[in-house]
């Protein structure tokens, strides 16, 4: 029963190597160029030669893609000026060249040490993502670690056409500790790991339709899911946005006062909560489809 390496335990570069066709990844602005944050140095904080983001050209299943992975170990994968510029540039290039863009997200959002630059970069990246979508160039976010996609990166991920998640992945805007700080421990206990994952984890996001695929925590499964989505796109239309808005209003009405995440699962048709909790990502996806 030996398993391959778990995707959530791999480094950003290992994830890229595992997702891209062998030898196909060509890094843009690689570490030897030493594009580092000018702000962190001033604050006496160590810098990273890739500023926490690996970007480049690659092929997945023979198809050309722009591929990027955030480095969660470096300032929580947070977006600073350089990191943000690389991110914006990549999606702009994707729109220009009409090549799909895949981003492996592992970030708490904007880097507080260079907040304004980070905020602007995220806004510009969103604009570039919508440019891609207007041109029917697929944009795919992969969220597969407990650092997950939060803050600006949480919002950014939902701008992409599709989100591929694993059960370890988490997606949200405010992180659990922030919610607890503002709402109180009674309202949301951030040390209750089961509660945290049941509210922001991959399974719940898949159930609510925020994630388009829920896959096994391994590079092969993630790559297969990404490859399947590469040919598709979901263009943005006013009608589509309005429909989504209505869906969200309905969700808020239905579950807004619910304190128990299990009730949300039940409301979404999960019958055996215990079995569903224990199920792996793909098992859960199968259960959810059958409404069990």
């Amino acid at each position: 029963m030996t398993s391959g390496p778990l995707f959530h335990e791999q480094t950003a570069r290992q994830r890229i190597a595992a997702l891209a066709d062998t030898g196909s990844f060509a890094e843009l602005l690689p570490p030897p160029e030493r594009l580092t944050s000018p702000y962190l140095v001033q604050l006496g904080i160590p810098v990273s030669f890739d500023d926490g983001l690996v970007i480049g050209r690659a092929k997945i299943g023979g198809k050309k893609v722009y591929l990027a992975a955030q480095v969660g170990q470096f300032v929580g994968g947070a977006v600073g000026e350089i990191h943000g510029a690389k991110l914006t540039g990549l999606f702009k290039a994707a729109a220009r060249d009409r090549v799909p863009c895949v981003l492996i997200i592992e970030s708490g959002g904007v880097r507080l040490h260079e907040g304004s630059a980070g905020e602007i970069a995220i806004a510009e990246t969103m604009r570039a993502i919508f440019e891609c979508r207007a041109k029917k160039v697929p944009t795919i976010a992969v969220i597969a670690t407990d650092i997950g996609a939060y803050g600006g990166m949480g919002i950014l991920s939902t701008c992409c056409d599709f989100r591929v998640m694993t059960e370890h992945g988490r997606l949200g805007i405010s992180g659990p500790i922030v919610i607890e700080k503002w709402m109180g421990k009674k309202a949301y206990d951030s040390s209750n790991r089961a509660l945290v994952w049941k509210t922001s984890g991959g399974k719940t996001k898949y159930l609510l339709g925020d994630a388009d695929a829920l896959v096994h925590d391994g590079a092969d499964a993630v790559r297969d899911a990404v490859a399947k989505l590469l040919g598709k796109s979901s263009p943005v239309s006013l009608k589509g946005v309005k429909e989504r808005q209505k869906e969200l209003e309905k969700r808020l009405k239905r579950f807004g006062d619910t304190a128990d995440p299990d009730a949300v699962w039940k409301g979404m048709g999960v019958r055996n909560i215990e079995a569903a909790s224990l199920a792996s990502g793909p098992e859960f996806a199968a259960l959810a489809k059958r409404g069990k």
Partner: protein
Amino acid sequence: MNTAKSGLRRQNKAQRLAKVGKLARGKFVSSDKVPELLKRIIEPGDILCLEGDNQKQADFLANQLATLDKKDLHDIHLVMSCITLPAHIELFKKGMIRQVDFCYAGPQGTAVADLVKAKKFPVGAIHTYNELYARYYIDLTPRVALIAATQADRKGNLFLAANTEDTPAIVEPTAFSDGIVFAQVNEIVDRLPRIDIPADQVDFIVEAPYPMHLQALFTRDPAAITDVQVLMAMVALRGIYEKYEVQSLNHGVGFNTAAIELLLPTYGERLGLKGKICKYWMVNPLPTMIPAIESGWVESVFAVGGEVGMERYTAARSDVFFTGRDGSFHSNRAMGQLAGHYAIDMFIGASLQIDINGNSSTVSKNRITGFGGAPNMGCQPTGRRHPTKAWLKAGAEANPGPGSPPGRKLVVQMVETFQAGRVPTFVEQLDATDPGIRKALHGVAPVMIYGDDVTHIVTEEGIANLAACRSIAERQAAIRAVAGYTPVGLKRNKRETADLRARGIVQLPEDVGVRPSEASRSLLATQDIKGLVRWSKGLYDPPSQFVDW
């Protein structure tokens, strides 16, 4: 003239019970009356045993005792396995304790070190578990014992569920010497699943307002095991388990040994070791053993205590675990320690500090923890007479003299060269030899395992076979050889190391057939707690702090 004492203790006990009067209804006491009852049954000068080890705690009774003051109770000689609760520390701060004899002070280690510095910790000695239980029958027999049980019936029989642990070792010497046994129970029921302590050994029972504290002490999350620990586990498996064909063993509590447990069904299976090693265990029901048990590696497990969440699993695997007629898990710390002392091929565990002579300790100047059972299992039982393959092989290597046993127990220390925060594990001198600590302990440095008892040290650098060393100088060189980049390691002599390696006393990973590049977490049977639940077919119920689903 007849000077033999006769019946005095019995008389004294009757007097104490008479003082209790209507405070109790028969054996049963309501929880609000407990402080008053304690005042009436305990006398100054008593040897008082408070039950509590590193897992279960008579915490309600301890907390009630701590509400009393020096004027209520003083000159108490406290005997207990583990000083674990803030309430225990209170007793010292209030000056109620004349002397304390104990084994371990894990969570209160810092508080104990502070008490020592303030000269408020009148310690007799720090013991190993069985050493202390043994003294309960010799010179430390409790006059009063405050114990913890899961359930009592209306007659006063006690059920101890999975956590029998110290209870029989405390109750027997107390009850059979006209002492008083007072039990807190989680609940009083009409019918017990089984009787672990008979009613006529119990004097008082209180239904505590909250269940006894149980620490999930042996749960190691596979997610926290590192690649380096996997490497060390591979080296240990090949260089020791496989080499000596270790059949019976004890594992410590650390992540290193958890890695070994999780490698058995994968790496161990690949090496063809199933059925050859690791069949008989004296160990608590470690969740990380589930994959090995499910893969058929394990014949039997006897435990000193239970583990939170393993109740359904152990009950369902009654061919492996010892279970009562009611079907549920049974443990016994005294008997488990005895088994670990005499009946196993190998003890393997970790330590915080090891000196150049191989002595180890978990004591630092600011934290006095003491011992648990490790010294008892991590030693050479020279009273052993039965041979096993591993015992004879290790014995032959040690080249015993004409006055020594022919065999040796394998006593293995498995440590990374650095602890967290880049603190070196290997030191020239143990913190335990600090003059202040030694003075408080009447000249005895609290050494966990003596270098003479250690046969092997395993680090990420390799294995040092101390048993095969022929002199103290050679042993020191072997330890330096595996001490990596610690100051102790940097003092090694290249030529000496090469010589020891040529003689097989020092072995690098490649010398035992392990490729470091192969060491990866992906070799583990599972990488997280959820995987353990799945391996257990849903029978393992991990404590909530480990659940993220």
